[in-house]
C-alpha cells in the first residue's frame, strides 16, 4: 500500500514536470511570422510560389506564367514519346473546353530537350489540342520544376501558389475535374 502511494506521488510529479516542460516548449516554439509558409519562395512544391518562366508556344507566341496571375493554371510537363502523357491529353482538352470560360488555363510544356519538335507538333495536330503548347527547348523549366518523371502536373492557384503536384500519369479525368473545380472555387 505504502509502495503504491510512493509510486503515485513520484508518477504524478514526473507527469506534471513532463507536461509543464511540454507546455513551455510549445510556448517557446510558437511560429515566427512567415516562418512556416513557403508562399513567397519559388519552389516546385505544394504551398510554394510556382517558379516563373517565359516560353514560346508552337505557333510562336510568348507566354509567361506571371502574366496569368489571377487565373487557375495547370502546368503539365510532357513529351510525345511518353505513353501516359499522350493518354491524358484528350482528357485535358475536354476539361479545358469545359472550364476555359471561367478563366482556367492549361500550359502544356513539352520537354523539348528530350523530345523532337516535329513529333510534338504532330501529336498536337492529331489530337487537335487547343490549349497552349510551350517549348522548353533548353530544359530550363524542366530543371526549375525538378522534373524527375513524365508526365508531371502542377495545379497553380489564382495567387500563383502551387496547390497540388501530380507525378506520373495518366491522370484520371475525375481527379483533373476535382482539382480544377477546387482551384476555381478558391478566393484570390
Amino acid at each position, binding site marked *: 500500500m505504502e509502495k503504491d502511494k510512493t509510486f503515485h506521488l513520484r*508518477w504524478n510529479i*514526473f507527469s506534471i514536470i513532463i507536461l509543464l516542460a511540454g507546455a513551455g*516548449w510549445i510556448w517557446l516554439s510558437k511560429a515566427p511570422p512567415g516562418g*512556416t509558409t513557403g508562399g513567397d519562395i519559388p519552389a516546385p*512544391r505544394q504551398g510554394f510560389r510556382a517558379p516563373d518562366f517565359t516560353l514560346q508556344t508552337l505557333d510562336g507566341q510568348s507566354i509567361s506564367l506571371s502574366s496569368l496571375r489571377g487565373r487557375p493554371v495547370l502546368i503539365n510537363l510532357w513529351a510525345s514519346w511518353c505513353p501516359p502523357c499522350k493518354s491524358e491529353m484528350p482528357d485535358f482538352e475536354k476539361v479545358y473546353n469545359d472550364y476555359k470560360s471561367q478563366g482556367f488555363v492549361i500550359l502544356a510544356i513539352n520537354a523539348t530537350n528530350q523530345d523532337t519538335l516535329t513529333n510534338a507538333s504532330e501529336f498536337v495536330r492529331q489530337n487537335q489540342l487547343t490549349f497552349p503548347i510551350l517549348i522548353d527547348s533548353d530544359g530550363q523549366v524542366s530543371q526549375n520544376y525538378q522534373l524527375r518523371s513524365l508526365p508531371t502536373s502542377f495545379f497553380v492557384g489564382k495567387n500563383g501558389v502551387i496547390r497540388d503536384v501530380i*507525378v506520373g500519369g495518366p491522370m*484520371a479525368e*475525375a481527379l483533373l*475535374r476535382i482539382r480544377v473545380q477546387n482551384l476555381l472555387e478558391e478566393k484570390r
Partner: protein
Amino acid sequence: MLPTLTVGPFAIPVAPMAILISLWVGLTLAERNALRYGVNANHLYNLVFIALVAGVVGARLVYVVRYPGIFASSPIGAFSTNPDLLDPWGGIAVGLIAALIYGQRKKIALWPLLDALTPGLALLWVAFGFSHLASGNAFGMPTNLPWGIELWGAVRQPTQVYEIFAALVILGAVWPGSRITTGQPSGGAFLIFSACTAGARLFLEAFRGDSIILAGGFRSAQIIAWLIIAISLWGLAKMHDRSRKPLKNTDEQIQ
C-alpha cells in the same frame, strides 16, 4: 531527396514504397511479437489485413461520396489506380471500424493487441521519416546552421533526419524484449510508445517549416501531441493500478 526511382520504363515513387515495405516487415514483427502478449498471430495478421483493405476501399468510397457529381459524369474514375483519389481520414475511419468489428467477432483483447502491434508501429514511423526525406515533405524552417540542407529554395533544418533519428531511438526502446517494455502491465508498451512518439513530435515540430498554425502562432501538431502525452501518462498510471489491484472474490480469480 529522391521522390521517384526510375527503373527502366517505370518511375517508382520512393515514399509509398518505403511505407509498404515497412508495413510488411512491421506486420511480420508484430506476428512474432503476438505470442509474448497472448494474441493469436493469425488473428492479428487477419485484423491488420482487413483494416488495410477496408481502409483503401473506404478511402476511395468516401472520396467518391464527396464529389458525387464528378464521378456520376466520369464513373470510371472511381476505379482509377491513382492514389490522389483517396480520402485519408475516411480511409482511417473505415479501416478502424473494420478492425473493431473483426476484433469483436474474434474476441481479441484490445490492449494486448496494441502491445503486440507496437514494434510494427514504431517501424512504420521510421519509414515515414524516410518517406519524408525521399519526397521532401515535413520540411524544416530556414536556418543558418552548418548541418542545414538545401530544400525548396532555402537552406532548412533537416527535420526529416531528426524524425528518423527519433523514430529509431523509439524503435529500439519498444523492440520485442526490450527492458523498457518488458514487465509492463497490459497496454503499457503501447502507451510508452504513444507518449515517446508524441514527445518527439512535440519537440521536433518546433523546427518544421510546414506546421499548421493556430491563433497566436501555436502549432496544432504540438497541441495534439501534448494531449496524447497527457492521456498516455494518465493511462500508464491507471494500467499500473489495475495490474496491482487484488481480485475481489474467488469467482473473479477463477475467471
